[in-house]
């Protein structure tokens, strides 16, 4: 036990002596939170619209003013030439063209229906879909007004409409930041755990110190524990630090018990650190270790549900995702922080992590014994 403590002490000494280490621990989380959280957003703001109003009636203007009034749209240009508007879109200056054909008002009043056209730039399919959805909503809203305005009281009685009211649970203002911060924090802990731990052990092989360690009575298990424990501690510290930054800067909600978060994080870090250890047994240099870790990290992150929802992935990918430790931890984080889930709610994911941890720790230690 004394030996392990001494290895940990030595490891911390080396970590803090490493000049790039302190910035990694303290600055990276802040930068990542600020940049990623603000940048990686799906909220549509400032959709640039080019309006081609060929009708110029009070009805058409009312429609345009609906778009003007919405915070999501910015009328970039108004013209009478569809061609000109199209040109603007080709150059990438506008995201959407709203065209109101000539005779719109007349047609609407006479025939009871008229058409408008949306042309949406769909280079980014996701944002195009959202733009379409927003625009359709505005149009529907407008439609109802038109109906009400032109209806006689007798007609009014005959109209039965179903009104839909929305209420978004767990994130009432649809604040994207509250959704992103917990995910980004998982990312941070993962980077610390996977990259630094794997590289740290390989470094001992690379500079040959492992040879000197191996001739001492230190047991492999003591060595591994002593090596990984500091990063386990740093990882947990990092999470606490990141949560504080998230609370202070973004005022993220913390509905649930933080104890569950740290309990899960403790297990999650076991998984990640063992993964790093496993990588260190199949590589010989720090560079190799970094590349292999990086490969796994990219796959894990993209499939973690951080940016895209897991439910919309194809079934085979969803099955494969059960091997992705990030997925479990991100879910737990979001559930506890945003929903205030209790242990019963997260237990499925928590125990999955525990099983994962046991499996990967055994695998890593078995491999390590065999190799070193």
């Amino acid at each position, binding site marked *: 036990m*004394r*030996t392990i403590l001494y290895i940990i002490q*030595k490891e911390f*000494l080396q970590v803090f*002596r*490493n000049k790039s280490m302190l910035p990694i621990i303290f600055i990276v989380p802040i930068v990542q939170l600020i940049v990623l959280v603000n940048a990686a957003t799906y909220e549509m703001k400032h959709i640039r619209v080019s309006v081609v109003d060929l009708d110029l009636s009070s009805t058409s203007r009312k429609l345009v003013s609906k778009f003007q009034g919405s915070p999501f749209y910015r009328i970039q240009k108004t013209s009478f030439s569809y061609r000109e508007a199209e040109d603007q879109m080709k150059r990438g200056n506008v995201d959407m063209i709203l065209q109101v054909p000539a005779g719109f008002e007349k047609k609407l009043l006479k025939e009871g229906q008229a058409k408008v056209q949306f042309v949406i730039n769909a280079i980014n399919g996701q944002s195009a879909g959202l733009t379409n959805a927003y625009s359709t909503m505005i149009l529907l809203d407008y439609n109802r007004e038109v109906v009400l305005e032109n209806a006689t009281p007798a007609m009014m009685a005959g109209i039965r409409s179903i009104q839909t009211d929305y209420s978004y649970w767990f994130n009432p203002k649809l604040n994207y930041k509250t959704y992103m911060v917990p995910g980004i924090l998982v990312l941070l802990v993962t980077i610390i755990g996977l990259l630094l731990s794997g590289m740290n052990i390989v470094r001992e092989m690379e500079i*040959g110190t492992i*040879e*000197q360690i191996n*001739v001492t009575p230190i047991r492999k298990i003591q060595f591994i524990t002593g090596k990984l424990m500091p990063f386990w501690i740093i990882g947990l510290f990092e999470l606490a630090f990141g949560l504080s930054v998230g609370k202070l800067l973004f005022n993220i909600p913390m509905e649930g018990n933080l104890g569950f978060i740290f309990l899960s994080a403790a297990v999650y870090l076991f998984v990640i650190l063992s993964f790093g250890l496993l990588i260190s047994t199949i590589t010989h240099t720090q560079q190799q270790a970094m590349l292999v870790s990086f490969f796994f990290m990219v796959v894990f992150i993209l499939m973690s549900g951080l940016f895209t929802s897991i439910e919309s992935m194809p079934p085979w990918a969803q099955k494969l995702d059960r091997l992705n430790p990030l997925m479990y931890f991100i879910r737990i984080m979001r559930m506890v922080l945003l929903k205030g889930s209790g242990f019963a709610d997260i237990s499925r994911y928590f125990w999955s992590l525990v099983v994962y941890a046991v499996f990967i720790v055994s695998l890593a230690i078995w491999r390590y014994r065999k190799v070193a």
Partner: protein
Amino acid sequence: MPENSIHVQSLTKRFGETLALDDVSFDVARGELFGFIGPDGAGKTTLFRILTTLLLADKGICNVEGLDVVKDYRKIRRISGYMPGKFSLYQDLTVEENLKFFATIFGTTIRENYSLVKDIYQQIEPFKNRKAGKLSGGMKQKLALSCAMIHKPEVLFLDEPTTGVDAVSRLEFWQMLNRLKESGITILVSTPYMDEAGQCDRVALMQNGRIMTISTPNEVIRNYPLSLFSVKSGDIYQLLSELRLYPGVHSVYAFGQSAHVSFNDRNIEKEILSDFLKKNHHESVSITPIEATIEDCFMELMNTPAKEKTT
């Protein structure tokens, strides 16, 4: 307590196609300074790694202080000190931190065994707060030796400790080893430098995974079977090729600025050789009969087929 500190019998290790150790046997007495001498690739490091329980042999018996390297590896690790050929201490820890670390993982303290390393450690103590990576080659080597000895080992394995160290530090290092020997520690050293053989009690000359001979340095030289001359002339390349044509020559090879020529015949006349060379337009020829060095013996052993050697 076993009589010998190290007992190795028929040790064989193969790496794929390469036979790194080929039926190696030897014994080292307690308190002996035993040297393994041979070029790179002779199998010295492999042998040391097996003795220090870092590598498993394919075949053979290998005992350190009566303990089996496979079965009792844990006990062996407690009683042996190992200094690998490559500097392998923590470069980002200071001199003192390194020593303290190795003392602690062996369950001891610097103070407890200070007397043992005092001689060596004192020389680097003024720099104890300097990081190990910032030390000079000679100082690194002293630190490595201190770290290998801080737990008071019974056997010390030093793998090429003098490689890459300047001549003065090398000599100093051997003096340190000889002083250490007085405290009763068994020391095994490997080196590619033939001129260091004289510092050992006994040496084993190794080549291609085999031990060619084991004896005291003096005996190795005494057993040199040939008569040897050092020949100097202006054009060394010309000289080498012409000497090979001389009747009765056993071997010719360059040795620094001169050529070493050996003859099976003990009664070679220096004058006749001199005349022969002068006839071949060598002007300022100097021929001196010399005593063989370890390197000459090594060259001779290398040329002798294995069968002849055993007879």
